[in-house]
């Protein structure tokens, strides 16, 4: 008897589970669900915050046509796979996963749900229903490096970095190259924080760098803590991922701002029209993925002009931040005079240019 009961119960449960599916198919105008998987909290005012701004812009632009869902603080690894699968099962037709470490979990779930479109930020694994997208942050690093090179009195900048992955290495190199172009003796001291997010540690790292004579602070971690430390000690700093002027009105010279809004809107529209196709996009300043925040009044006219020139030349395609001759820390020539680094070479970058103390 009891077994029979359980079977009936299971059948009933299965029927109940199928009901919403039928109901959803019946409503032709039901909004398309778009899912977002975030590695950090939406309140970090950094990386995840900018992706969430993109999601909000998407909702604003497409209104009733879409419904967005997001999951924040998702650990890189098995958890990410579970979250992806749940979002796909819950009816999300398009899912953006926004951290490098979500690459394999996203790829695995994409195979299991061929009718769901996946988009993975900063990765390189693609599939028929898995696209990748990234931003050329190094272009922004070249702009702020130029400002640092001109405005630094000590000729030393402090760089708080997270982990030595190509993305971060590329940023350090682009910043250093740009600064050394205007000040050939410029040095960049790197502290590896071994975390993306730990405000107190980021602030302490900034203090340590300032103690060592750095008067320009920049970071590839997610909080604004380093800027506050710079403000307190009276040196300059740059915002990361979003405009962080409110945290350090005097120290904040400018910021590299990530802007995913247009990309999320464009891709969702394609999915709505049934024209979505997998691709690989690496957008820079020209494409609106990377923006430079308004300059602080403290930025000298000379630095302003030089930074604008670098920015305009990058947009025009006449300047590539990684143009040879480039030597690495050990003095080995990595790029010959006039040679430009390929996207592939940059994505594998595991060496530092001259002037980096890492």
């Amino acid at each position: 008897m009891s077994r029979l009961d359980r079977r009936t119960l299971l059948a009933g449960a299965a029927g109940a589970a199928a009901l919403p599916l039928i109901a959803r198919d019946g409503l032709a105008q039901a909004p398309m669900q778009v899912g977002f998987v975030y590695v950090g909290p939406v309140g970090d005012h950094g990386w995840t915050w900018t992706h969430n701004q993109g999601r909000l812009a998407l909702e604003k632009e497409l209104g009733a046509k879409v419904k967005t869902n997001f999951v924040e603080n998702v650990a890189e690894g098995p958890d990410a796979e579970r979250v992806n699968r749940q979002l796909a099962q819950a009816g999300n037709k398009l899912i953006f996963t926004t951290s490098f470490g979500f690459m394999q979990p996203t790829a695995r779930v994409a195979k299991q749900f061929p009718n769901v479109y996946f988009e993975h930020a900063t990765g390189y694994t693609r599939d028929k229903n898995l696209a990748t997208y990234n931003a050329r942050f190094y272009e922004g690093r070249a702009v702020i490096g130029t400002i640092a090179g001109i405005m630094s009195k000590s000729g030393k900048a402090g760089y708080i970095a997270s982990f030595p992955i190509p993305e971060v290495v590329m940023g350090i190199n682009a910043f250093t190259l740009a600064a050394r172009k205007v000040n050939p003796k410029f040095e960049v001291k790197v502290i590896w924080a071994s975390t993306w997010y730990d405000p107190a540690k980021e602030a302490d790292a900034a203090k340590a760098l300032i103690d060592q004579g750095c008067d320009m602070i920049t970071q590839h971690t997610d909080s604004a803590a380093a800027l506050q430390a710079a403000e307190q000690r009276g040196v300059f700093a740059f915002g990361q991922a979003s405009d962080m002027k409110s945290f350090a009105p005097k120290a904040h010279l400018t910021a590299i701002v990530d802007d995913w809004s247009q990309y999320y809107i464009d891709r969702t529209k394609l999915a709505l029209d049934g024209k979505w196709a997998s691709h690989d996009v690496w957008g820079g300043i020209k494409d609106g993925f990377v923006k430079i925040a308004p300059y602080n009044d403290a930025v000298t006219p000379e630095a302003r002009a030089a930074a604008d020139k670098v920015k305009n030349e990058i947009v025009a395609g006449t300047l590539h931040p990684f143009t040879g001759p480039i030597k690495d820390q050990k003095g080995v020539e990595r790029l010959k005079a006039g040679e430009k680094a390929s996207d592939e070479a940059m994505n594998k970058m595991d060496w530092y240019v001259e002037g980096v103390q890492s």
Partner: protein
Amino acid sequence: MTTAILISIVMTILVAATPILLAALGELVVEKSGVLNLGVEGMMLCGAVCGFGATALSGSLFIGFLAATLAGVAAAMIFAVLSLHLTANQVATGLALTIFGVGVSSLIGKPFVGRTVGRLEPFFPAYLSEHPLLRLVFGYDILVYAAIALTFAVAWFLRSTRPGLVLRAVGESDSSAHVIGYPVIAIRTAATAFGGALAGIGGAYFSLALTPMWADRLTAGRGWIALALVVFASWRPRRLLLGAWLFGAVMTLELQAKAMGATWLAPEFLAMLPYLATVAVLTLISMRRAGAEGGAPACLGKPFAA
């Protein structure tokens, strides 16, 4: 290395140790009464967000720290009601409190993301800290001094006062204390509230002194370090002070070594140092106190129902 850098390093260490010391000191008193509250991180986050919010709205750091204290106590009272009065499992309740604290602080903090407030400034007038050596003594905010003073006050309270003795008795043998006529649950609730208050202030030290802003998970796991410190100090307040400084030193020196360009040391090795230090000290302590209980209160974590 110049004197200026050395002084700056020492000051960074003392400041970095302060919030951990405050939270750990509170937890020490809680554990001495026989209660294991693993929700320190959650209470710190509640304190951090309420302290920041109250300061942002009122413009007063005093009101901010007051709000942080009350928020910490309120969070601790959730724990007290569940685990002391309803005798729920303390470990599970404490962990739940941390998860709750992460969530509720994020919720409360939503309107405050991206804002900043004036930070807690040094306690003594600026002219006293013009000279670097004087700065070493007079250059801190009030909580750095208060935390150190409180450490000695707690040590004195536990060792030399009657209420301190009663608190320890409740932690060592709850049934005996109950038989003599002491209100075990009430004493434990009071200790838990004290722990919550200090955790709240410790949390607010992040959002009002170290990095005057609110961002989700601002304390980034310092509550767990505070918990470890209590064991590390084998439940002795003054050893807690040394432990907090040692932790602050290892955390700061790691960054300083990198900034100075100790490139012969892999950054991964330097990042390991705080944990290596923990393992080393814990091993030393356990070797010396082989056979003994390591100083843990006998009734730690055990539920008590009268």
